[in-house]
């Protein structure tokens, strides 16, 4: 389910079936890394949309969690935990964080939820056929991670 007025009513009505949230984590920079920040946002947004398409009936794609890299990953993590509490409070059972920012790997063990880190594939200058191929390859590897998480803890 997407964060739209079209999908949210279904989410509310079918809550017992939609027990998983997908949260993109996007770093924001205005300095030299601004290009990198944009590339990550582009890449992760496309990936998140594709995962949502596959698991539409069980997964809620939230708006991205954005943070300044300068904020420091510990501070971002604390804010993220706040999101996490709110979602758990809304009876969302599984939470999946999706990011290309390697900072999160440093705190992966401290997160209670699943972190999927994907190495950034910059889409700029890529022709659309090749881009599609890359996306579907990556998605193919990613889907079993989600399905297994459900299997382990239905």
């Amino acid at each position, binding site marked *: 389910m997407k964060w739209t007025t079209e999908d949210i009513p279904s989410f509310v009505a079918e809550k017992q*079936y939609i027990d998983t949230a997908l949260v993109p984590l996007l770093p924001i920079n205005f300095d030299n890394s601004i290009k990198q920040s944009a590339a990550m946002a582009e890449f992760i947004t496309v990936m998140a949309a594709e995962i949502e398409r*596959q698991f539409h*009936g*069980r997964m809620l794609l939230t708006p991205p969690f954005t943070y300044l890299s300068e904020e420091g990953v510990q501070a971002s993590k604390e804010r993220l935990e706040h999101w996490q509490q709110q979602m758990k409070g809304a009876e969302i059972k599984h939470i999946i964080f999706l990011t290309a920012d390697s900072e999160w790997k440093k705190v992966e063990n401290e997160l209670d939820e699943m972190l999927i880190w994907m190495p950034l594939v910059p889409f700029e200058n890529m022709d659309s056929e090749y881009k*599609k191929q890359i996306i579907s390859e990556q998605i193919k590897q990613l889907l079993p991670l989600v399905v297994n998480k*459900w299997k382990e803890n239905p």
Partner: protein
Amino acid sequence: MVSEKNHNVSRRQFLTYTLTGVGGFMAAGMILPMARFAIDPVLQSAGAGDMNAVADVSELTEEPQRFDFSYEQVDGWYTSEVTETAWIYQEGDNITALSPTCTHLGCTVNWNSNESYQNQFFCPCHGGRFEKNGTNVPGTPPTEPLHKYEIEVRDGTVYLGKANPQI
């Protein structure tokens, strides 16, 4: 005294202007969506609804295979590329193309993806299952068959249109 009177008038004028302004906004708020309704169908006819070339007949087998296709969708002033998937198989002269969208809550189903359920479409989300022809397996969450694409075959190419409910 005079200045007080002037003051009053100008306040009334001010109110009049303001109200006209607000009224104008409200009118715009009502008319714009109506204009959108009027214009939208025209704009939309450009994308969905057309037939798209999806596969060659020679590629088809009795086993459903996955084919992806994309087209441009125009929504208002915003154009986006939409990718869709179809599961297509051929039996004798009959070609069937099914939508992969689970009729329960819309996850994407896969053919033969669960060892326990051979020769069925399986939905990873809540275990929905469908027969090869799209019929939903009773006792699983979906309550209607997978939707079927409109099909046209021209010069050995399979074109797909909209996916419609089977019942």
